[in-house]
């Protein structure tokens, strides 16, 4: 593994007596694509919420490029290069497609309100840059988010395009680590196939380090350098797709202990 970019060091998150994540240690190397799998309620999305600062860990440390981010406010963590998409889409639905992306550059721009009102050279330069970035990022999805769609409200997009826009918006925050929550959920087979290619392109062309939650095992197999399986907030297996998929603990977590009777 290359130098770890994202490290979770014995992280525990407790809600009262319930340990949603327990003593979890994960390291994701720079440029790696790691998939998180596990049954519903295993703590995958909770883990994303921990990394992005929605929750602060009860104990343990989270580091990005060696810098501790545990307990920082979400917008600070995002500013340090951690971006995510949401399993249940959370776009700014009443803003235009382009504005959705432009809004995500807030942390990397600094024009004050009065500078925007007076249209100072700095504010205008920033606005030009943000515009160019938004167009470039939207162009990543070939023609799907281009042209007339820029000015359309996000709610008017198709479901698949909304998923794409979520990724575009995350890209505009200039991330180093991209957390993708169930990118293929609700997609048809053709779109699922595209998503697999897209995630590979995100790493190869943009250099992102990617941690993805995914239930579709074809996607997991297609994208992952490494797979980590969670259950009850704990890591139960880690390694190549084949190794994890055949791991008895993983099979048990998905299927239950060997009580099922196989039909002859």
């Amino acid at each position, binding site marked *: 593994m290359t130098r770890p970019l994202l490290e979770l060091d014995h992280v525990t998150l407790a809600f009262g007596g319930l340990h949603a994540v327990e003593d979890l240690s994960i390291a994701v190397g720079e440029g790696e694509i790691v998939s998180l799998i596990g049954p519903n309620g295993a703590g995958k999305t909770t883990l994303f919420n921990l990394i992005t600062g929605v929750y602060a860990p009860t104990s343990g440390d989270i580091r990005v490029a060696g810098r501790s981010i545990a307990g920082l406010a979400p917008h600070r963590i995002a500013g340090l290069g951690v971006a995510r998409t949401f399993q249940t889409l959370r*776009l700014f*639905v009443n803003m235009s497609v382009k504005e959705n992306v432009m809004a*995500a550059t807030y942390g990397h721009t600094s024009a004050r309100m009065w500078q925007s009102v007076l249209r100072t050279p700095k504010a205008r330069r920033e606005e030009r840059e943000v515009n160019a970035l938004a167009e470039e990022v939207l162009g990543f999805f070939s023609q799907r988010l281009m042209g007339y769609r820029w000015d359309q409200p996000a709610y008017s997009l198709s479901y698949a395009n909304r998923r794409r826009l979520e990724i575009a918006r995350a890209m505009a925050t200039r991330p180093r680590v991209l957390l993708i929550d169930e990118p293929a959920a609700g997609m048809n087979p053709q779109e699922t196939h595209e998503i697999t290619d897209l995630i590979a392109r995100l790493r190869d062309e943009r250099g992102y380090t990617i941690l993805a939650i995914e239930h579709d095992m074809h996607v997991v197999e297609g994208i992952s350098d490494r797979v980590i399986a969670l259950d009850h907030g704990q890591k139960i297996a880690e390694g190549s797709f084949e190794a994890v998929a055949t791991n008895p603990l993983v099979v048990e977590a998905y299927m239950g202990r060997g009580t099922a009777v196989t039909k002859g």
Partner: protein
Amino acid sequence: MSTPNDAPPRIGVDEWVARSGERRDRGSGPSAAIVRALERVGWWQRLAVIAAIVALFPLLTSSDYAVRVGVNTLLLATLALGLNVVVGWTGLLDLGYVAFYGFGAYGFALLSSNQLGSSGIHLPSLLAIVIVVVAAALLGLLLGLPSRRLQGDYLAIVTLFFGQIFVETVTNVAPKVTGGPNGVVGIDPLNFFGLEVTTTRGYFYVLLIVTVVIMGALHLIDSSRTGRGWRAVREDPLAAALMTIPVNKVKLLAFSVGAAVAALAGTIFAAFQAGAYPTDFDTPFLILVYAGVILGGSGSIAGAVLGATVVSVTLELLRNPSQAATLFYGLILLTLVVRVRPWRKLGAVLAALVAFGFAVHAVIGAISASAVAGHPRSGGWVGDALGSWVVVPADPKGPGNIAFVVLILGLVALVQLKGTARTVLLVPLLYLAAFVWETRLVAEASITRQILLGAILIVMMNARPQGLLGSKRVEVL
């Protein structure tokens, strides 16, 4: 691929479908041509043209009263612009907003009158305004602090409480300073470098400039980093935070900007009426500002101004019983035309209503002469026309009150019913509405104004939920 504007997309392709809303809004014919022409010019040219037209208004009328209505309208418009930042863009339900208006008025009053010290404080107007507006912005920041943790209705309750604290404070806490219930009187007029603004027309122009400048500034902010931050926080605070937006800071800034705009309006208001009184800043006035923002279309700059204008002018028209009656019956007729379909049913309802009225009038007149002895309270041609149709007793107060309660119960019953029963009940209810109007409502102008404004809002929001100039919003997907 971006299609040039002059080449419309092929019928049936994605882009054509996506633009169906635009085409429907724009339509065809001469009005659409005007809209298209307006769209070709930039926003600030449009603003300048409209401002120039509005600037002609005081020159075209010789009535000081009309210009005074104009001043009040511009004040409400400025307030609506500030509230739109907080509510329309950032999505914070701030019910203490009017307190900042009052703060501006009282702040200016104390810095420009004999109220404080032995000979009072008389700062130059510009200095006083800057001090008060900056102080209000800071106060907005302070009162915005709870908004960091509170959402939706919780924030509304806390801010409503702030609004009440303001009124209570200026009324009761330090009567020597704020004049208690009597307020502060003898406030200096606005004075810019020796140029005193003393006429109603003068204040109209000062406010027109202020409104236009604020509209321009807000437009630039809306399409900037700050504006996008505000709207992103409105749409989804959590997603906004995870997209590098410091949600708390952005919310506080919105509160602060809203407070500053309201305070600026307050300073001019205090100078205009040469006094500041606690009753000017109570909750009913807050409702008017909200009505303006919602009616115009929450989130739209031009909408806030248009909505405030509609509210202000409507309330003014309702002062006069004959105008109020025209508006009342007009509203009912309009609602019937829009809602009762097909037209044969509409015709039947109207015919039945006319016949019902004359029949009731004849029957009751035959039983007791005094029961029809009164004259409709609506003056003018409406009152004359209804003379022998609607029953007005010699002493209308008691029957009017009872009828009002029956009318409300009837309306409740009406919305429960379906089909023919509903249509049949509509006739006596409409007659009852006319009866209540002629016996009671017209006589209680101040209450009726509020009820009618509410009715107008309900009708408008049914017809166009996004407001006059607002764009359609989707809540959840």
